[in-house]
């Protein structure tokens, strides 16, 4: 659906986007991750035909952004970082205007405005002036204008910025709902959002592409191994932490065992496997056969935050490793 190849955008003295390539399949939700100034907004502006690229190509639904911008614009819904709202208009008036602008006929416009108003939960304020709305409502009206013409592709720049936790959840649900019919590119700083909503992640730093993959794959690639969190209890009397640790280390495929703070007589460990080994089953058997209570066995992935920091800041990586070893 979206194909970006060798995209470069250069201004007089800076290179905002440097040779970025990625693809998005139909119906996917892709997260765009990167520190401030990385080039996310610029890339989105190129996709929505607001800015022309300096070199490279970008195609949406088969149409090139330079050759056929008109066709691309018909198929894209765009929500910039600050929603493009007219404060002197009422919500329904604004949505009617945007809908007509995007090509909805006057016969359908009333129905469509009603539908998106419902979908984005702005029904209570449909006759209110936009200038008087709260941030949450404005964001939702912005989202409504992005989906009003039922575009194939949605480009959302920080859609949950400034919303309260309840509204964030509602927006995420809405985006998830939309993903089947629409292809969505979502840029954000909020890492949990990418973890929850997105199937794939494109990480950008200083205009360059750093990584693009599914969240699960990225975790595996970077971790290279499995990590398991264990909680072990005793059916009779206190446990000898050293003995338990030793037993765990003997399980095949284990590379190291990191003990954590014990609590109320229960022991906690984080066990890391060698590259490419699966250790959960063996660990479970080892604990149970030794007569201990296996209270919890949980796979621990690298959090996206760790991935992000690792990929966008080599000096940060050193810090986290040192901390891990200490514990």
């Amino acid at each position, binding site marked *: 659906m979206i194909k970006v190849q060798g995209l470069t955008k250069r201004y007089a003295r800076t290179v905002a986007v440097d040779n970025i390539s990625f693809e998005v399949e139909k119906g996917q939700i892709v997260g765009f991750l990167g520190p401030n100034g990385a080039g996310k907004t610029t890339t989105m*502006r190129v996709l929505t*035909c*607001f800015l022309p690229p300096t070199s490279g190509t970008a195609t949406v639904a088969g149409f090139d952004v330079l050759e056929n911008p008109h066709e691309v*614009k018909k198929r894209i819904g765009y929500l910039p970082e600050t929603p*493009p709202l*007219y404060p002197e*208009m009422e919500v329904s008036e604004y949505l009617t205007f945007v809908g007509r602008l*995007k090509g909805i006929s006057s016969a359908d416009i009333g129905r469509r405005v009603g539908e998106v108003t419902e979908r984005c939960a702005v029904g209570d304020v449909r006759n209110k002036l936009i200038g008087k709305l709260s941030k949450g409502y404005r964001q939702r009206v912005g989202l409504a204008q992005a989906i009003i013409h039922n575009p194939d592709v949605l480009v959302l720049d920080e859609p949950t910025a400034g919303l309260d936790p309840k509204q964030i959840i509602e927006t995420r649900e809405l985006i998830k709902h939309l993903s089947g019919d629409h292809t969505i590119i979502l840029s954000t700083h909020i890492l949990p959002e990418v973890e929850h909503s997105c199937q794939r992640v494109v990480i950008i730093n200083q205009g360059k592409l750093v990584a693009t993959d599914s969240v699960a794959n990225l975790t595996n690639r970077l971790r290279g191994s499995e990590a398991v969190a264990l909680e072990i209890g005793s059916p009779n009397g206190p446990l000898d932490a050293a003995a338990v640790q030793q037993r765990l280390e003997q399980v095949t495929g284990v590379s190291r065992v990191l003990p954590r703070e014990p609590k109320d007589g229960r022991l906690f460990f984080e066990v890391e496997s060698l590259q490419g080994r699966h250790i959960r089953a063996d660990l479970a058997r080892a604990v149970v056969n030794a007569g201990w209570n296996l209270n919890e066995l949980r796979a621990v992935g690298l959090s996206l935050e760790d991935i992000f920091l690792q990929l966008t800041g080599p000096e940060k990586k050193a810090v986290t490793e040192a901390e891990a070893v200490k514990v």
Partner: protein
Amino acid sequence: MKNIWIICRKELKSYFASPIAYLLITFFALVFGFGFYTATRDFVRFGFMSQLQGRNMPMNVNEQVIRPLLGFASTVALFLIPLITMRLFAEEKKTGTIELLMTSPVRDWEIILGKWFGALLLYLCVLATSAINIAVLFGFGRPDWKPILIGYLGLILQGGTLLAIGAFISTLTKNQIIAGGVTFFVCLLLWLLSWFTAFDSTGYASVVNYLSIVTHFEGFAKGVLDSKDVVFYLSMIFFSLFITSRSMESLRWRA
């Protein structure tokens, strides 16, 4: 085509949703009304005086009242037009809504024409108040309507030109005040050009005189429909809207 109309309607609604439209109409109505009162009062006084003196000069309402009034209206318009055009693009640039317009399936020239047309319609509403005054004259005398119509055509063409120039200047900045101020100075300059070169007939002076907005209006005020003047205004409008579209395009390279 219909995109132009959609944008034009939106501009008009915006104008009338804010005080600006009402202020402009009221201001113009008051000022023109005052000028109208003065002109007709002097006309009547002059008529009485010449009757008293037994001279019975042929009094021509058209020539002595309407023509100077139309000239007066065109001067007042000079002050109004910056107020109309200053927010056309500057506000959109400031609030970011220009991004919405430029990423929608609407062509740049449709946006420009829609906005210019909206401004022109507002200008027509403002001029309409003067038409009311002039219509009163028909109740008391028998002025010739054809020169009046041509005079208004001249006002509309002149206004259209200045509005197009104002639209261009509005694309250059995010600050409405700067846009308004610069437009005002440009309009003033174009108006003064005719004064500077009124008595000069050297080569360069003729060119400068040709560029003046006022020079070309004079024909219309007299009731003379000269194609040379019409062509001047139309080509100025086209040229101004063209550079406006270039300026809009340049926004894509600067952002």
